[in-house]
């Protein structure tokens, strides 16, 4: 393990990814301490007019928007929404995907047929339309959005876990556990899952980028986090209207923030794959469903 860790430390792209994700996560957590203004605060000059569309300067690093809000504060606080949705939705998709994938792989037969059929149905579904419909029709609120995105992504996890379980279920240690009379659930949880988690962790890390991108697309279309709570996708949509007037900073900085975070997760996931799952060196994970 020490050898693996030192290999990870030597992997420059992976370290760059870890750095990006850590910096953005720390900024999100300590947002009140590193920003000068509240993200929803409409700033006013001393003579009484709004601090509208001020270009980046020493006081407003990322400029201000049309409502006089500091863009640096909005970008930093916006990281909270992206990371929260990325983490929560990934957790939901892992929970559903690991459970169903493990059941399909371990029990086989009809259980496998039904779960694989369900996964194929979800793969054939136009996913963004599905998420949009869920988000549009369900009552507004973050937990439902996590669930909607998580539900869409379970099929990929289930397919991966099913394949992994199939490859280890015939191993001697599983047979030994069965011979000792262990229940199916116990064998899956205690013996199989710990041995197949490496590729799942890699896929989850790579999938985070896709989920963050999906959330920003929803917010861009006006279906995501509701204003005035800052969200990167919504900021880009708002700033787009002022792009032609020269106020590039309103859209540019949130866009760069999305890129930095998605890039961070992609690089980190790649590094983890080299470390934990070196046999599987394809790049499918980067595509995700975002």
């Amino acid at each position: 393990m020490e050898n693996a860790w030192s290999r990870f430390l030597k992997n420059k792209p992976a370290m760059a990814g870890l750095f990006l994700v850590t910096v953005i996560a720390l900024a999100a957590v300590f947002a009140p301490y590193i920003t000068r203004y509240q993200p929803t605060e409409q700033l006013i000059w001393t003579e009484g007019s709004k601090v509208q569309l001020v270009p980046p300067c020493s006081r407003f690093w990322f400029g201000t928007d049309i409502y006089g809000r500091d863009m640096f504060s909005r970008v930093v606080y916006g990281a909270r929404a992206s990371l929260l949705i990325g983490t929560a939705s990934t957790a939901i998709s892992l929970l559903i995907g690991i459970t169903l994938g493990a059941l399909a792989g371990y029990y086989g037969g009809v259980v496998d047929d039904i779960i694989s059929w369900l996964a194929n149905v979800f793969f054939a579904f136009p996913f963004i339309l599905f998420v949009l419909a869920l988000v549009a029709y369900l009552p507004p609120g973050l937990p439902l959005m996590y669930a909607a995105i998580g539900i869409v992504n379970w099929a990929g996890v289930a397919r991966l876990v099913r394949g992994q379980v199939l490859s280890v279920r015939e191993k001697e240690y599983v047979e030994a556990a069965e011979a000792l009379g262990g229940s199916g659930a116990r064998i899956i949880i205690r013996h199989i899952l710990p041995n197949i988690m490496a590729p799942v962790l890699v896929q989850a890390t790579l999938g985070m980028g896709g989920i963050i991108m999906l959330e920003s697309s929803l917010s861009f279309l006006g279906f995501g986090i509701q204003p005035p709570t800052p969200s990167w996708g919504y900021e880009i949509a708002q700033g787009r209207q002022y792009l032609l007037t020269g106020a590039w900073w309103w859209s540019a900085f949130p866009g760069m923030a999305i890129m930095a975070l998605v890039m961070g997760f992609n690089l980190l996931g790649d590094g983890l794959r080299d470390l934990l799952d070196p046999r599987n060196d394809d790049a499918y994970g980067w595509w995700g469903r975002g």
Partner: protein
Amino acid sequence: MAIYTIKRLLAAVPVVIGVIAVVFILTSIVPGDPARLIAGKTADPETIQRIREELGLNRPLWEQFTDFFKGVLTFDLGRSYRNNRPVTQVIMERLPLTAKLAVSSTALAVVTGVSLGVVSAVKKDSMLDHGGRVLALLGISAPSFWIGLMVVLLFCVKLRWIPGTGTGDGGWLYLVLPVITLGMRPAAFITRLTRSGMLEVLEQDYIQTAWAKGLPGRAVVLGHALKNAMIPVATVAGTCMAEMMGGAIVVEQFFSLPGVGRLGLEAILARDFPVIRGQVLLLALVFVAVNLLVDLTYPLFDPRIKYGGKRRHE
């Protein structure tokens, strides 16, 4: 090959039935009464009830599903709640634009992605390789609407070469920016995939033999190596195209293009369930068809893959 195709088509039937069932259940259980939406806010209860009866919404869910299913088999997907026109007609009007967008973007992605990937692999660790990898990383990490903004800023505002949004007279010029925007991410992905595939193939013995025989570089790289690195590229290009047919919502909305994606968004907002059901069904069929077509292209790249017959060179 024919038997394999028929088997695959038969295997897709339960998947399509599943898609129909899921979309029907979802659109039936969502809160909000379409009859009330159609009737308007000031409508009296009698009018709303009459519309419900006209649309068949007062009948048991099971009956509605059976009718819908029968309709699918006869290509009758019902009528749009918004304008009372046949759903198939509404979708077919929007389909050519989205298809044009998806095919062009995929072609752009494959041409640029494969070219960059090959150059990157052949010139490994050179400045060209590093540049290609950084470009691929940036392309994969940027959301499509942000890429759209940047290309509009560059080509419309700074250079003033191309018109911004809309379809104008329907000419190709209006599709240039959406195609670039939509194709950028798959292009970056294909670059990466081609590079890693080529690096693996270039180390194989038969490539060394080809070099040793004194074959020209172009013949070795393009004739021998690239062909064998193309299977994952074909898979990804197919998946991208199938997803673009349904997932170009953001780009279509961004560039104000009246395609299928935008139709879906409008239908969701208006609770036009027949259109949503029709669209999901159509896109699921496209997904199944494109995946099948991609599988059928594999023997072109690797003759050892032969459907419905014995494997060669095993």
